[in-house]
Structures are given as structure tokens and as C-alpha cells.
């Protein structure tokens, strides 16, 4: 089913691009434990991406690698949060906090999907993103309450990433399914996840002594292939070797 495939593709792209960003941290983290933790989270996300892209590709006769390595920027349908740069550690934590809280809601609902494959992927992912949120939450507290510098950086990181929150919960983000009917019971309407997010994340931010940002949202449009200028260079690096050897297997 093409609509289901495109739905899975969007979710897969979210996970893939974020995993790629987390991979950039490896060997550069503030301490070895964080090399391990960020790689772990990245690996989990990469696993979700592979399941989702494989499922999406099955509708089109394409492999996960066809989709990951041979699409251009405008064909990537990840939401913009996930392509944002790592920045400093605080910005990475801010991005991960938002992402993990979003994923928890998403995968909880999706694990009840009428599509058994999506439901299975979601159920497995749910356990993992739960740990991811815990990791971000711990660092949010440490950085928020730690030193004046860490507090300033954590707030700055939240401010920078918060503008990408609204896009996560925008319903027009299910491509080709504008009236939402065909995927009812299969896909999760992003807007239905907003309340859960709002009940959780602002509270965590406040507990860390930080302020919930209020800047206007970015326009979004990632699901339609609109991206900030940060995605192009990610793909250049990610795809360089695969594209240098078209048709090769690895």
C-alpha cells in the first residue's frame, strides 16, 4: 500500500537522520560514558529506521539502502528537528529530549496500529525510546541545575530546538493522505500526540529550572521535502561512498 509506505518512509527518515547526527558524536563526546550512550541511542534509532525503510521499500521494490543512499534532499521526508546540527552537548540533549518525548507518544499509539508490521516495529521501539528520554531527562536536570554556564547553554539549546516542535504535531505531515481517512487505524495522527507531549516536556523543563521557550515555530514542511540548510551536507557525507559505487553490495 503506497500510503502506508509513505507513512513508514517519513518515520524512517526521522529516525535515520537523527541517528546520523548522533553518529557524529562518537569519539567526540564529553566523556566516554556519553560516547557509549549517544552511540547506543543512535544505534536504536538506526534500527528503527532500517525496519521502517525496509517496510516502506517493500511497497516499491526498493531496499533500505536504495532509500537511504539514492534519494536526494527533496525526497527526504524527515521533519526538520532531526536534521538540526548537534551544536554543543546541550543542544544535542535538547533535540533528543524533544525527539524522545515525541517518539514515546508516537510508538505507544502506533503499537496499537491495525497494520501488524508497524505495530510490531513500534512496540519494540517503544521500550528503547523510553530509555532515551530518561537519558535526556537526567542531563536536562544536570545542565539546568549545574553551573551558570551549563544553565545558559541548556536554555539556549532548548530555545534553538523548540521552534521545530510544532512541526512534529502537524497533521498535514502525512503525505498523500490529506483527508486522513485511508490510514485511519493504521497511522497515528500527529496532532493527537500533542497533548501528551505538552503534559510531559514543559514540566521536565520547569523542573530543571529552565524556561519553556515561546519563539515562533519554524515553518516545517519536512514531510514534503522542505528542509533547512543542514540536511544537504549530512546527505553528502552519508551517501558519498555508496554513490561512488552504484550497484555494489557491501
Amino acid at each position, binding site marked *: 500500500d503506497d500510503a502506508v509506505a509513505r507513512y513508514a518512509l517519513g518515520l524512517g527518515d526521522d529516525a535515520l537522520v537523527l541517528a546520523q547526527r548522533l553518529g557524529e558524536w562518537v569519539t567526540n563526546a564529553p566523556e566516554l560514558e556519553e560516547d557509549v550512550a549517544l552511540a547506543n541511542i543512535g544505534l536504536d534509532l538506526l534500527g528503527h529506521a532500517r525496519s521502517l525503510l525496509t517496510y516502506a521499500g517493500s511497497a516499491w521494490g526498493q531496499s533500505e539502502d536504495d532509500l537511504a543512499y539514492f534519494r536526494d534532499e527533496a525526497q527526504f521526508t524527515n521533519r526538520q528537528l532531526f536534521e538540526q546540527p548537534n551544536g554543543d552537548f546541550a543542544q544535542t540533549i535538547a533535540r533528543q529530549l524533544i525527539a524522545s518525548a515525541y517518539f514515546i507518544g508516537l510508538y505507544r499509539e502506533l503499537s496499537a496500529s491495525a497494520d501488524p508490521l508497524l505495530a510490531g516495529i513500534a512496540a519494540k521501539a517503544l521500550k528503547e525510546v523510553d530509555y532515551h528520554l530518561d537519558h535526556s531527562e537526567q542531563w536536562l536536570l544536570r545542565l539546568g541545575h549545574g553551573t551558570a554556564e551549563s544553565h545558559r547553554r541548556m536554555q539556549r539549546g532548548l530555545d534553538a530546538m523548540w521552534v521545530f516542535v510544532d512541526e512534529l504535531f502537524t497533521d498535514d505531515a502525512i503525505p498523500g493522505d490529506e483527508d486522513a481517512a485511508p490510514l485511519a487505524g493504521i497511522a497515528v495522527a500527529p496532532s493527537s500526540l500533542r497533548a501528551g507531549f505538552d503534559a510531559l516536556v514543559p514540566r521536565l523543563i520547569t523542573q530543571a529550572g529552565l524556561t519553556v521557550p515561546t519563539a515562533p515555530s519554524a515553518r516545517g514542511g519536512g514531510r514534503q521535502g522542505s528542509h533547512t540548510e543542514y540536511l544537504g551536507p549530512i546527505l553528502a557525507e552519508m551517501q558519498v561512498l*555508496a554513490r561512488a559505487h552504484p550497484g555494489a553490495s557491501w
Partner: protein
Amino acid sequence: MHAAHELDDDPDGSGQRRFDELIATDSRIEPSDWMPAAYRKTLVRQISQHANSEIIGMQPEGNWITRAPSLKRKAILMAKVQDEAGHGLYLYSAAQTLGTDRDTMFENLITGKAKYSSIFNYTTPTWADMGSIGWLVDGAAICNQVPLCRASYGPYGRAMVRICKEESFHQRQGFEILLELMRGTPAQQQMAQESVNRWYAPALMMFGPPDADSPNSQQSMAWKIKRFSNDELRQRFVDMLVPQAEILGVTLPDPDLKWNEERGHYDFGELDWAEFTEVLAGRGPANAIRVSRRRTAHENGEWVRAAARAYADKQSADGQS
């Protein structure tokens, strides 16, 4: 602190007698046991060097995480580099049982005072190097490390059991990378062969200098930290590689390599020990960037660790009040 055990801590010689007996019966020395200062020092040096090697060894492979040519390989590579960080932490813990704290060991690493395996001063210009590192470097490491699982010092031996399991997994993955390349396009085959050409000799040198030039080995063998000589291990490694190379279809870059019926082993050519010494002295292809990269990460992360310390302090102050 274990330092209390040292020097004048065994006036009647009973500690030494028990230590000798444990060694003689192939039993394990544990952190609370008395041990000779030199034994402790040798172990700390060896374990912390091993930990440092795992940590620095993340870099040549980390180099390809963002560019891995398939998602499966990307996942395997990320998991492997993460394992290496885990090994580093695990080994630091083992060394800490000997009374040397982790911060000191890490500080020695990033200030260039402590050593790490010279092999990681080679660079990884191609994807095939992910295969060669797994097959050759991890392969050599395993030959070195399997006997260490029986090392006389308990925490070290037990750490090595876990590490060896993961390493042999890594070696197989490296072999698979090369196999896939050798079954692939001509460009992939060439990439694999070129990479094996670069890594073969450095991997053989990982066992250290010939026995005749390896002064520390004797004592380590007597203490049952080390179980086989450098040359014995090297021979074992070459004997293992040759049939694997045949399966892969790669040529090992040594014209003198051939089966010696009489010895029941492969003969192989002289290694370029001048090269080994050069790299050890800091003039390898990547010495200049390895330590400075980790140090930069550490320095850039100082504010993060400071925040974590401040938060922990506040938490424990709250707990007490």
C-alpha cells in the same frame, strides 16, 4: 587503597609465599591479595595501555560511521565502536582495582604520557580498512588476548573473557566486509587488496618485537600474565591467516610466505622493525591527530562534566539537609 600492600607490607614473607603458591597452581590473584609491587606495576601499565588502545582505537573506525556504505554496515560499525568504548571503561575498572584511578589514567592518555597500541596510529583512508581492522587487527588482538583470559590477576582475566567474546565477533565482521568486497566489483576487490597490503605487516608487528629483543616478556610469563612469547603468537596468527586469505581471495603481501612442511608452520619474511620503531616514537601516519582529538573532545566537554559535578554536589547536599 591498595598501595598499602606495597613495599614493607610483607615483613614475614607470608604474602610472597602465598602469591608464589597461587601463581604456581594457576590460581587467581584477587585485589585483596598481597602482590609484589612490580607485579602490580606491570599489570597497571598493561591494563591501562590496553584500555587506552580501545579508546584511541575508536577513532580509525569512527572515521567511517557517517559514511558507511549500507545501513547494516553502519549499524555494525557503530556497535563496534561503542563496544570499544565499553572495553575501555571495563578495563579502567579492572585497573582501578589495583589502586590507580581512572582520571589519572585518562589524563596520562590525553597528555601523551601513556601509551596505546601503535596500530591505531595508522589511518583508514578507505572503507576496506574497516574490513582489514576487523580481520587483521582484531585477529591479532584476539591471538594476544585469548591467553590473557587466563591471566593470573582475576579482574583482568575476567575482563578479558568478556572482551575476547566481543572481539571474535568483530573479527568475523571484518572478515565479512572483506569477503563482500572481494565478491564485488573490480573496484571493490582492488579496495580490499590495497587495504590488506597496508595492514598486514603492521598487524604482525602488534605482537611486539622478536623474543630476543623483548626484555619484559620473561617476567610477565613467569607471573603468568603473559602465556606465550611474541614470536609464538605471531606464528600462530600467520598460520591462522593464510587459509582465511585463501577463502577471501586476497594476497598477503609477503613473497616469502610459504608452508614449511618440516616445522608444520608457515614461514614468513622479515618485518620492517624500523617502521615499528618510527610509529612507536610518534612518527606514524596518525600519531599527530589521535591524542589531540580525544583531548579536544575532553576539553570541549569540561563544562558538561563541571555541570554534572555541581549537580551531584547539590543533590548530596540536599540529601544531607
